[in-house]
């Protein structure tokens, strides 16, 4: 079996370039048939490796195939007319785009070497003693909104800030509450304890319960999955 080393390609142009360089092909005279064959080998290998093949790769395969077939067709040469001029090489558009793309690929490599992001540090704010606090009023509440919306639009939508329960319910507090309640009602249902409480409070209560079990202060029993939890105070 033909063994193709799979690298990741930044799209069909990137793959085509790889093939052109590998075969030391003159970009202006691409042997479409053989390049098409190799291109398909890569695509098949990518498929076998379960790599997602983007539609762009398939589209390019279709383009190559189209060029290949149009090159096989005998050209209808009108009698006596000396070809050229209107006789466009079907590869021309592809080559133009490839050359255009290659320019940016070369530039990208140049940028890569001159990139000092993460190496060179600038300060982002003026020295504090030179910040004039009176200048602040230049912004309105509306500027705040605009700034925030701008951020939301450019950030990934899956980033949602967690609303923190700011130490509102703590395990420690809940343990105390449990112990206090258990003095009055030594056997109680968990559902009664958290009845009508905030979701976070329920979670914290459950954690407090686990802690109490660990501390051997209570035993808890649940007859069936999702059933209620019966809490019994342990006598010392």
């Amino acid at each position, binding site marked *: 079996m033909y063994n193709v080393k799979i690298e990741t390609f930044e799209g069909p142009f990137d793959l085509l370039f790889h093939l052109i360089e590998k075969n030391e092909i003159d970009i202006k005279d691409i042997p479409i048939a053989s390049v098409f064959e190799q291109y398909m080998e890569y695509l098949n290998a990518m498929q076998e490796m379960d790599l997602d093949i983007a539609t762009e790769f398939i589209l390019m395969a279709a383009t190559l195939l189209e060029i290949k077939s149009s090159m096989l067709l005998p050209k209808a040469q009108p009698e006596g007319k000396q070809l050229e001029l209107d006789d466009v090489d079907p590869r021309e558009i592809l080559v133009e785009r490839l050359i255009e793309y290659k320019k940016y690929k070369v530039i990208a490599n140049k940028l890569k070497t001159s990139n000092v992001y993460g190496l060179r*540090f600038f*300060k*982002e*704010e*003026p*020295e*504090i*003693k*030179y*910040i*004039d*606090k009176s*200048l*602040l*009023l*230049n*912004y*309105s*509440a*509306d*500027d*705040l*909104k605009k*700034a*925030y*919306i*701008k*951020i*939301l639009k*450019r*950030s990934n939508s899956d*980033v949602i*800030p*967690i*609303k*923190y*329960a*700011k*130490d509102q*319910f*703590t395990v420690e507090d809940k343990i105390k509450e449990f112990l206090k309640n258990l003095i009055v009602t030594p056997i109680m249902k968990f559902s009664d304890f958290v009845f009508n409480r905030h979701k976070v409070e329920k979670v914290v209560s459950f954690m407090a319960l686990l802690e109490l079990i660990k501390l051997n202060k209570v035993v808890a029993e649940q007859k069936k999955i999702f059933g209620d939890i019966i809490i019994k105070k342990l006598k010392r």
Partner: protein
Amino acid sequence: MDIDYIIESILFAAGRPVKINTLSNVLNVSADDVKESFYRLKDSYVSNNRGIDVVMIDDSLAMCSNEKYAEYIKKALGLDIKQGLSQAALEVLSIIAYNQPITRIDIEKIRGVKCEKAINTLLEFNLIKENGRVNAPGRAILYSTTDDFLKYFNLPSLKDLPPLDDVI
């Protein structure tokens, strides 16, 4: 000497005091070595009338500008700097305003970039304050806006922040 200039670069980039301990750990030298570097740097800055200076505050070192040139600095910054908060600071402030209380990590997740300096500036302006800690491992600091924030932005209360519903 190399270590002097590494310290110089760290103090510059920090833009705030850096603990001598931190420097000694990072450079793998003793705290005394760091202090010696500090004195050497300070000496060369002062004796040459350099534009920058270093100071020791408690157990930290910080870079600052030379007081001698304060008049020039004020003039230049007055002319050049767009007034008020930087865009970065404004963005961080807006995130805090709409999501308080919130941790630095979460702010950075939303903004996609570090924002320690902006937070320091906002604290300095008293537009935000530390407001407790997350009740979870790490106990990260939570930030909220202050009363001064409401005053500056002419808001009777946080409920009067421009609503976002119509845009998202």
